[in-house]
């Protein structure tokens, strides 16, 4: 299964990396996710997911410049790789397939 499927949280993180473009490093991803999803996002979880994404080859990272507020430590910026983009598109397509076949009627009650 590894490398083929995208978990829900993995997908969210990958999407966030894509939206943040050049500002995608762990803390920013964490904050953005928390803001958009409204759930509490733990740094440790984000870290392990980022690590996994990189292992799967869906994202890659490079170290940026040192800043003062991080005690002189450099940030690790993430970008979505081509494989990552493909995985995102595939996930979206799969969902769309389902969405397209749900009859409109079903949603009237909401």
């Amino acid at each position: 299964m590894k490398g083929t499927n995208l978990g829900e949280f993995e997908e969210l993180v990958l999407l966030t990396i894509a939206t943040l473009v050049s500002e995608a490093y762990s803390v920013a991803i964490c904050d953005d996710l928390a803001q958009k999803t409204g759930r509490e996002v733990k740094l440790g979880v984000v870290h392990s997911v980022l690590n996994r994404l990189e292992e799967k080859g869906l994202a890659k990272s490079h170290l940026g410049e040192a800043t003062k507020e991080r005690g002189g430590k450099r940030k690790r910026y993430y970008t979505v790789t081509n494989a990552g983009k493909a995985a995102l598109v595939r996930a979206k397509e799969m969902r769309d397939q389902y969405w397209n076949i749900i009859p409109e009627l079903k949603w009237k009650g909401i």
Partner: protein
Amino acid sequence: MRGVNYTPPRWATRFLRWYCRPELAEDLEGDLHEFFQRNLALKGPRQARWIYILDVLKFLRLYTVRQPSFFYFLTHWIMLRSYLTTSGRNMVRHKLFSFINIAGLAVSMSVGLVVIGVLSDVLSYDTFHVHRDRTYRLISRYEYMGDKGNSFMGTTSLRAARLIHESFSGVEEMVAVRGQFQGDWQLGEKIVPLSGFWTQPSFFNVFSFELIKGNAATALQRPFSVVLTETSARKLFGDEDPIGKTMVFNKDRSYTVTGVVKDIPFFSHIKFEMLGSLSTLEIVAAEEWRKDAWDDVWNTWVYLRLPPKTDLADFDARLAQLSAQEDPSVPDTHIELDLQPMKEIMFSDSMGNQIGPVMGGTLLWVFGGLAFVVILSAGLNYTNLSIARALRRTREVGVRKAIGAMRGHVMAQFLVEAVLISLCALSLAVVCFILVRPHFLTIEPDIQKMFTLQLSPAVLVMFFVFAVVVGLLAGLFPSLFFANVRALQVLKGSSFHGSKKVTGRKVLMVVQYCISIILVCVSIGVYRQYIHYINYDLGFSTENILNLSLQGNSANVLKKELAELPEVKGMAQSMIVTSVGNYWGTNMRYPGNPLDTIGTGVSYNTIDEHYMPLHGHQLIAGRNFLPKPDSARETEVIVNQQVLKRFNIGGQDPEKALGDVLRVDQKDMTIVGVMKDFSYGRANDRSSRETIFRHDPKQARWLNVKIQSDDLIATYAKIEAIWKRIDPNHPLEARFYSDQIAESFSGLKATVKLAGFLAFLAICIASLGLLGMVVFTTEVRLKEISIRKVMGASETTLLFLLGRGFILLLLLAAGISVPLVVLGFEQVVFPNIANHAPINLGEMLWGVVGVLVVAVLTIVTQSLKTARANPAEVLKNE
């Protein structure tokens, strides 16, 4: 933030760097730092630091943890030989230091080994029972009139056992064991005394005692069945098959042997020579049996086995329910039941009514604590001396570092060295252990019955692990110290002094001497109490009185025979021997005060008319008992002053109390005399109890014989000869009263021996450490001393110069520890024991002086050697 610059805890960051993969570390640290700053603003510094620490711990995951480098381990492995060689060379080169370290560690470790031995023995108790983990003992707590003072007892009532058996579900097996099956078996001419328990057929289901002959299911079914152990069977029947044989018990009924059980393993908390069927009691103790009282909780042990994963809380609740249901059957009494796991029985030394001797908890804690202190002391020696000698080793470490050793390698080297020394010490310690073992086993009679301290392979493995741990701990500090040595600094030749942290070493020395002095003072203090108690004025005289247990023989016959001995000056008989820790009690009421319907428990002894004059009990008013035939009814009582006080009889005027009637044991008894209070229980018993003497010659179980003789041994032999004529089957049991009192304080005596022994060890270790320190400092100052000498300093001045520092430290140690001991005795020990002797400061100071003299001798001999050294020899190379 503003102004103050808060930082995350440094150790947490270091820990993160240590465990984290290098490629992830920087990023992670940055993230955590960012969060820390954020929390600092939001939640304040305290919480921010706290969250930081938690996060560091939370990041400890599989993907973040650094993989151990194979290469790193490989070098360790390759270098091991080098470590061993250098360590070995070092030990040989510095023989004195190696000796001090090895001897100190060996001596202290031998104590540790004894503790391990005891622990391993206690833990191996009852392990032969297959279902030990699921076997429990039903224990009970007796509460009368809401008095919660009693602790749990190992016993419970037969009634509780029966009710649980009948009404509780979820009990796999259960057995009741009733005490006091004791007496003489008669088989033809042969008489063999044996003891054991009454029990049920399920005994062999609950326990794993192996029945080698007979049917386990039925052997203990029928009345008057008895199961013997192999040894007892051999005693009675020799090599014959005992099954089906009958023999007579206590000249009364005859019993049939229905089984032979394999001899009881040494490590069994239940020990017996025979088992009788409990159903026998239905016949021989029919009255008691019919009563089936809920509060008869004194003589039955109940064991039960529960299925795996039983909810114990639920079981306890059911027991509480049972208590609530049964309590009303006995007025004013509450019996609380509980389960005790079988594994804990040997540790429950605070529990009364044990089925056999137990001695786990307290002994282990106290002894283990003391052993720890002594080992700590020896470990400190090692640390102390290693660092003191740093000067000589830093160069070696410098070279190692210069050619590429990492911190870890240096640490490993010194740890290996410490473990090597500790293993050498272990081999010596095992020898010490074997030498100490017999002394330890005989310190108290019970110890020998409980422990073997055998060296089994498991114990040896534990010894080994113990030695390695001690070595690692002792070597930890020096190894850290050496790991921090800077190669460049050392090799540049700047004189690197390992002895910078002199204060630390001084503190260690003071601590060691404090330990020694405290142990010495405690031994002296406890010894003083022991002497005080065995010579305590009990309120009567015990001089030259030989107490002789009648063991069921007629007192009159024996008295007649003994009276013919010229050395026997008087004889009395009594039910118990008082003041040696025996208590015999009953309930007493005073009808003269109708409001007092409950009465009180009194201690009593049943005596004859000769008892009081023989023991010098003093009557304040009234008269002694008058002679009466054995068959006469009990009508008179002599009370002590406490009884008058308790019931306010005659306005506490002894003369007016005479003739008043007390109700004792449902019998009316007239007060014929009032005696002075005496120590009924034991000299250290706080409770000044209400005590009475009763008069009933039938109750006699002891003969008190007053002897006046120049040759006590010969007299004893004569008495023994008479005894043999009257009772050839039982050996004479006679002890002098003063010996019995001393024996009743054998626990205290054992404490003195133990504390004294440990004090001796502590002094040895501290002296060894001191010797090392003195040798080291004088060696370092050899040149200085020589120059001083050339300049004209006298030997005395030099001696003073060298020794002053040490002697001041010793005095400091004495100044700290003596007040500590005095305070400890006054504040902690004395409030808990009654009738104690006051502290004898003089004696303790003598002990301190003794310790100091040994220390000063050590200092002086070594300093003198240096002070006398020929300065020309020392300085000729300069």
